[in-house]
């Protein structure tokens, strides 16, 4: 790069061309700008309160390493008085976590922060390697995601912390937006762009699962995070999980990468679009709201919290997931079309009865994670057994009014309760992790003494 003066201090030579702004800066000015912007995200949304205990989800990868470093810096610089602690999860995948865990340990020392490492084996009695040995490579990512989500919350509970921060960056959020558009997942489209989720309330409201989650690096470019880590000489170890990548996220990731090449600002534009769309999701309750500040205790499942090298999701092979969704959608379309060819009306009672079924159908088997959410209600409406001969056809009037006025009814509300076994926040009687574990444990061959950790 031909010598340019830094556009901020006008003294040093510029070493960096910021992808987000196109401005040329020297390294110190860049890191300062990065830190200041992160601080702005935090203060403008009052993300932390003074003296708060915060657990940083540390995977050893670049995002969480930068996050920890920046938070430490800002905490000191602005005297926020935060108590920071590093929380790391060991999935028990040989050769994957080992190196990143070492990196986390080194970081903890350098930053002078306490570190807690929690393993799946310790928490659930099953490491990911053991899970894969048992169930193979189909659906293994579901287990990992569910377990990780609970692990972070349980870890937070162990540490007595009500707020966990993760290193999700703008690229991640943009990918999620695109992915949810491709999958037609309105519900997650409404949630994926929130800066904060969860309430951080006390044990009474859903136990330790109402832990607050936020992503302070939400507006930071992945590229700039790499640059920051480089110039601050931060120690990290990024890996991709060896178990399969998810088709939709992979497709979304390629699209985002290509978009970035054409127009780097488009990543932020996608995020902004996602936030706008979230407000327009029916039943989201965010109409007219101030964007990303909804702090309802929204129960989420595993797929909301992928990160740390995991491409996340259902662990099907690349073509598999998209083909499966395609199949489901096609059957729905066919059913709908055939329904309209025979105009038969059901008596009013049956229509209401059918609505009931629709809500009830949501407690599906845990392993079939995806189908229940594809298309939201449409899927369930058309899961007809051979006995139900017809599907009630809504006239054009009903369809139109259905869309415009009954906005909230389009997404069935999930009721919040607690898992019978472990007390975790769940919309079902038994939470997903407990259900998965039950399945695993039943099939497990007896091999001597098992030491079971805490929890269901």
């Amino acid at each position, binding site marked *: 790069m031909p010598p340019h003066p830094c556009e901020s201090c006008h003294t040093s030579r510029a070493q960096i061309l910021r992808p987000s702004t196109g401005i040329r800066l020297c390294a110190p000015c860049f890191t300062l700008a990065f830190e200041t912007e992160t601080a702005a995200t935090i203060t403008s949304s009052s993300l932390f309160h003074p003296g708060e205990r915060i657990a940083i989800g540390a995977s050893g990868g670049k995002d969480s390493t930068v996050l920890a470093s920046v938070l430490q810096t800002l905490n000191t610089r602005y005297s926020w008085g935060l108590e920071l602690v590093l929380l790391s999860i060991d999935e028990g995948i040989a050769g994957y976590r080992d190196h990143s865990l070492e990196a986390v340990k080194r970081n903890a020392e350098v930053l002078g922060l306490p570190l807690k490492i929690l393993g799946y084996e310790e928490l659930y009695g099953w490491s990911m390697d053991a899970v894969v040995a048992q169930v193979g490579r189909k659906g293994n990512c579901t287990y990992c995601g569910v377990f990780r989500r609970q692990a972070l919350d349980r870890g937070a509970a162990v540490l007595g912390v009500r707020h966990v921060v993760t290193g999700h960056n703008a690229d991640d959020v943009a990918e999620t937006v695109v992915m949810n558009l*491709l999958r*037609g997942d309105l519900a997650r489209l409404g949630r994926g762009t929130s800066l904060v989720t969860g309430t951080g309330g006390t044990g009474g409201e859903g136990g330790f699962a109402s832990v607050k989650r936020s992503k302070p690096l939400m507006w930071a470019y992945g590229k700039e995070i790499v640059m920051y880590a480089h110039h601050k000489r931060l120690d990290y170890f990024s890996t991709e999980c060896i178990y399969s990548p998810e088709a939709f996220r992979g497709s979304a990731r390629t699209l985002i990468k290509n*978009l970035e*090449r054409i127009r780097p600002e488009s990543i*932020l534009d996608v995020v902004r679009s996602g936030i706008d769309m979230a407000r327009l999701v029916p039943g989201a309750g965010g109409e007219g709201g101030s964007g990303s500040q909804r702090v309802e205790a929204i129960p989420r499942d595993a797929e909301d919290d992928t990160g740390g090298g995991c491409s996340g999701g259902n662990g099907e092979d690349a073509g598999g997931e*998209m083909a499966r*969704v395609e199949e489901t959608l096609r059957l729905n379309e066919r059913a709908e079309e055939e329904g309209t060819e025979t105009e038969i009306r059901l008596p009013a009672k049956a229509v209401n009865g059918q609505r009931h079924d629709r809500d009830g159908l949501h407690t599906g088997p845990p392993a079939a994670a995806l189908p229940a959410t594809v298309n939201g209600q449409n899927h369930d409406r058309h899961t007809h057994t051979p006995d139900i001969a017809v599907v009630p056809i809504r006239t054009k009037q009903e369809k139109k009014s259905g869309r415009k006025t009954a*906005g909230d009814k389009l997404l069935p509300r999930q009721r919040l309760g607690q898992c019978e076994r472990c007390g975790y926040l769940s919309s079902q009687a038994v939470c997903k992790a407990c259900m998965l574990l039950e399945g695993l444990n039943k099939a497990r061959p007896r091999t001597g003494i098992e030491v079971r950790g805490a929890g269901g």
Partner: protein
Amino acid sequence: MTGPPKTRRDNVAVDDSLCRRCQTNAPTITVRTEPLCSPCFNKYVSTKIIKRMESFRVRHAEAGHERVLLLPLSLRVCSIVLLHILSQHLRTQGEKSGRTGYRLHVLYVEDGKGEASVASELFELAKQRYPEHTYSTRPLSDALALPGMQEVLRPHQATTQASTTTTSSSSDLSTILAKLTSATSRTDLHQLLLRKLVVHCAQSHTCEAILWADSTTRLAERTLAETAKGRAFTLPSLTTDGEAPLGVLLYYPMRDLLRKEILSYTSLVSPDLEGLILEEKPRPAVSTRDTSIDELMKQYFSSVEREYPSIVANVVRTTGKLLVERVGEGVEGRCELCDVVLRGHAPERSRLCFGCIRILQGLEAGG
């Protein structure tokens, strides 16, 4: 058994070597895994479009005072097919009830992309083949003469200067487009001006609605492209049937058909429609830095459309479920370029939305 089985529940074994619907003819095309014969495919395409024209049935119209609907004809596949099918529809309406539910005004906008002579020939052919409609053409540069355009696009040029009236506006347009360095900005501005002009024409010809020929595939592309440009909030109002965000009702009768299905249709009609269609320039296979965002999405969805057509349709359906932003009329300021409501989608005291700011950033930089 009398007649072909209409639903699967009739428990008749389906013969896969015959058309799935009529079970009589041999199939000539596979539509989303269903083999169909030409007549049934024909019916499939027409039905999907006519279903969307519910509000313009004969019973809803007064004799002699039929509503006029504007059909912007880009001379590409989708708009030609739409013209053909709607002409058929009107003919059928006329035969059945002696009058029609609506009239069509067909508009061609010359976009100065150098295809003008070929395009005008094709336009003449269309006029000859469907003489029952009214036709008009406008050059895209007319959009620059619309209120507010000069101020927005050339703010440094004083409006009292004589040069703005004497220089031809078409060279103005090419100058402006040439000044934009990114392909995305050029395509974006082009589309915005086109839409503005079409809306203006619809209003000046007192058309009640505009019938856009966008296919499912095109709408999916648009969803992703506008999302990538930060304009996702406009999607519900600009892709839902029956909304009037810009002052005129907008309809998308072809929204249930994939582009490849529409393409197949052209060869199954006789005489075929291929002679009326303006060919697309061949597109690069791989995206480069010079590709526009719209082009990127086109490439993406043409490959998704091949393997996973229902996913494409689902993207459009999902967007269709988003609520349309309701804003008080006249209270809020509107973007001077794209007419969207500014509140929440623009920086403080700006006259342009974020998306349009991006376009004009290229302009002010002077290339």
